[in-house]
């Protein structure tokens, strides 16, 4: 659930993956004519020190999911290997079809196809898939991964395969049942789109005999067309062809390149410089990010036209307010009205940052998105409305003097200690000061940012946020961000008088199996949060990528907002 870059080069942003993204985006990303050829080595230039998690049950970062799924971790179902909207359709991978649902959405069955093998040549069996799913439950070892298996599967008190007693294991085997080649999932709640959930690599097979627990993260067993040759944190990850993989058994992957080299720990400006120069091996390289300061160089010059893309990724940026500390709507309104969103957008690269968000659900979630009615007085061009903000602040002084005083004394804003955020915080301080609100910036080392703010003992007033749905349903957005049970609720809104009604409505929306009616419910809940300003909507984000002149098949894969790494090819 983490994203590498939001608002320029920031270290991380919590965020999941997935969903049809490219609403309108640009179109220059198709590969240069002709069918892709086999052979060659693709390089991926990365500022990260490693892949957050290669262990399929722990992988939850958009880019990393796209990388692992397309190269090494086959799943029961997958998103289509296609550009844009077509890429958000679900298709069969290990299974022969996209699943059979029965029992009013509570039972899902998948039948495995023939010929799938691990890198040691052994066949992928139903038991391997079930074992993989069971690992998610061992939350003391399998950390950071998505927990949908735990919340959906009809099994209680199961501690994962490492510690389970025979009884507990039997209970799990009942919930995830193997008969011959057919795996059946028995769920405790109806899930209409469970076959989207199974696109996550946490539903990938793991051979029990080769499971090394915590160490599996460094050398997972491959079921796809590539396997790990070497992996050195801070240096590189080298993938080579898995000669046991059989093209005929895999309905989606093509595996054009002979090997893929992930280069870690590069300075962001060095990556840009190398990509701009396009010399030597960098002609075979791709980069997932471009620094804001280099955007004009790359996008104003037609020479880059065939090897750059600017598109809407699945992410939304926003600002969490601690509703516990700021328990006064007037103060929250004043904060939002006074904020110079135009300056923040410019600091991130202007139009390349994205569009002003009118909520937390992106338009790409067509069923769940409706244009929200924004706060009265909020300028649509993003500039601050100081008079309206001052009026809200004056109202707050009468209606809730304590909170107004707290805002005047100083609101603590935890931000990642990076140059880009240093500018963003300067913009916050300067714009809020105009209505007498003091912002106290508290820099946190970028790599410790999320652990710090997610710690309940951290007493912040304001923290940043960024999120993308796990699949095309706002059930992976609104409850995750604003329900107390959600995995990424930083708004501390449990004591808000309106919370109980909100929570009841979320429960009702989750249980609604009529997708159109459920969408209406998410739209209303999105508006509900926008009206209460538990968090301030920021930007429907865009991303920019660049690739070397000899790389083909460089389309942006909608659901993950990244390259489809396993499909990249080399043009001679």
């Amino acid at each position, binding site marked *: 659930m983490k994203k590498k870059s939001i608002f320029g080069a920031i270290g991380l942003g919590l965020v999941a993956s997935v969903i049809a993204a490219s609403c309108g985006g640009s179109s220059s990303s198709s590969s240069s004519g002709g069918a892709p050829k086999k052979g060659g080595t693709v390089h991926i230039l990365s500022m990260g020190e490693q892949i957050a998690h290669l262990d399929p049950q722990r992988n939850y970062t958009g880019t990393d999911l796209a990388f692992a799924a397309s190269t090494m971790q086959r799943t029961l179902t997958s998103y289509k290997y296609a550009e844009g909207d077509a890429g958000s359709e679900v298709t069969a991978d290990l299974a022969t079809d996209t699943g059979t649902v029965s029992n009013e959405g509570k039972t899902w069955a998948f039948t495995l196809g023939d010929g799938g093998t691990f890198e040691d040549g052994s066949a992928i069996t139903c038991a391997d898939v079930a074992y993989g799913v069971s690992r998610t439950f061992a939350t003391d070892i399998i950390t950071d991964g998505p927990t949908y298996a735990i919340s959906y599967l009809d099994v209680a008190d199961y501690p994962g395969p490492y510690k389970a007693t025979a009884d507990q294991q039997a209970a799990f085997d009942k919930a995830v049942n193997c008969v011959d080649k057919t795996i059946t999932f028995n769920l405790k709640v109806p899930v209409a789109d469970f076959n989207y959930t199974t696109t996550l690599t946490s539903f990938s097979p793991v051979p029990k005999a080769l499971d090394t627990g915590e160490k599996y993260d460094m050398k997972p067993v491959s079921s796809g067309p590539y396997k790990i040759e070497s992996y050195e944190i801070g240096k590189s990850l080298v993938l080579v062809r898995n000669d046991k993989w059989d093209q005929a058994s895999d309905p989606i992957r093509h595996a054009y390149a002979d090997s893929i080299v992930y280069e870690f720990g590069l300075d962001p*400006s060095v990556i840009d410089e190398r990509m701009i120069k396009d010399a030597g091996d960098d002609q075979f390289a791709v980069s997932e990010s471009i*620094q*804001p*300061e*280099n*955007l*004009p*160089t790359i996008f104003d010059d037609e020479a880059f036209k065939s090897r750059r893309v600017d598109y809407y990724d699945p992410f939304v940026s926003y600002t969490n307010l601690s509703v516990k500390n700021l328990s006064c709507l007037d103060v929250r309104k004043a904060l939002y009205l006074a904020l*110079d969103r*135009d*300056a923040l957008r*410019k*600091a*991130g*690269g*202007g*139009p*390349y940052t994205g569009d002003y968000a009118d909520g937390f659900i992106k338009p790409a979630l067509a069923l769940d998105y409706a244009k929200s009615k924004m706060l009265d007085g909020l300028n649509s061009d993003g*500039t601050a409305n100081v008079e309206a903000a001052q009026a809200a602040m004056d109202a707050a002084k009468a209606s809730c003097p304590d909170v107004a005083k707290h805002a005047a004394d100083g609101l603590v804003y935890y931000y990642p*200690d*990076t*140059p880009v*955020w*240093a*500018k963003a*915080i*300067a*913009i916050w*301080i*300067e*714009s809020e000061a105009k209505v007498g609100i003091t912002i*106290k*910036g508290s*820099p946190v*080392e970028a790599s410790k940012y999320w652990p710090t703010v997610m710690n309940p003992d951290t007493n912040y007033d304001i923290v940043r946020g960024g999120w993308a749905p796990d699949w095309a349903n706002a059930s992976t957005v609104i409850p995750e961000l604003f329900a107390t049970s959600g995995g990424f609720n930083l708004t501390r809104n449990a004591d808000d008088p309106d919370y109980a009604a909100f929570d009841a409505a979320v429960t009702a929306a989750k249980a609604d199996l009529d997708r159109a009616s459920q969408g209406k419910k998410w739209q209303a809940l999105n508006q509900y949060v926008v009206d209460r300003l538990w968090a301030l909507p920021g930007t429907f984000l865009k991303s920019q990528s660049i690739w070397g002149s000899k790389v083909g098949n460089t389309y942006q894969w909608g659901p993950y907002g990244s390259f489809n790494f396993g499909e990249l090819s080399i043009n001679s």
Partner: protein
Amino acid sequence: MTSTIDSVRDDGTGVPVTASIVGKSPRELAWNRFRKDKFALFAVGVIAFYIFVALFAPIICSALGISPTRLDGQALNDYGLPDGPFGNISTSHLLGVEPGTGRDILARLLYGARVSLMVGFIATFLTTTIGVVLGVVAGYKRGKIDAVIGRMTDLTLAFPSFLLIIALTRPFTQRLESIGVPEGNPARLTYIVLVLSLFGWVYVARVVRGQTLSLREREFVEAARSCGAGNSHIIFKELLPNLWAPVIVIVSLSLPGYVSTEATLSFLGLGMIAPAASWGVMLGDSVKYYRADPTYLFIPGIALIVLVLAFNIVGDAVRDALDPKGDRQNLL
């Protein structure tokens, strides 16, 4: 006209004027030599100018109508870059604006000078004080005390100081905050000054100890001692006045080092916290824009180079003035 002891000149009034041939003190001799070094005098002027603008930064900024924190979106184009050539240098922004925010670079430079000079002067004062005290004590007392201080010096020199400074920034800043140093920039600056002093005193102490060792055997010290002078008299009245020359040289050469170190730490993101201005922060930020806005890189860079160069020139000139043997041709 009868002869007199003094030489006599006629100044045109018919009244004889007498002027004594007066012996000059070493200090006067040094000053005369220094005064002839026009290059050094110019450098002194530069330093004085920096100190002046740093001290009066708020007044200068309000006179020019600029501020180090005010955002100016009008000065930026749609992509957040300065909307004009050379970082949008214009009458309203004499040195242009910062990309991304539109803050005035001149104002940030002036406020940044305060940080650089403050760190430089305080760290120099502390290192000099500690170094002189320990150096004199070691050289004068000799024996065990000298051995102990000598080992401390060796130990401090053995530390990979810069790595330690970087590694300890966050934990130590938090520690300072927990014992009551105001949070944020005051704590960071206190930390920087403290660590610079912690590792900087050894150079002063070594030189002072060496000088003291040779001075304490000289006749005037012997004479003072034979007259019954106590230790404190000998140290303060006899030794210290003769140590100033080397100390001044070290000070003038180490101060620019501290200014650069502060900039380096800020560059690495361990210095001043936003939205405060510092040259290192500006340099660190501007490096990213060398392609899109090279002017932004040059301005803080040149400011830093000129200041450090001025201090080094003055340091060299002081050494030359105090030590006539090291005669060197002046360029000017």
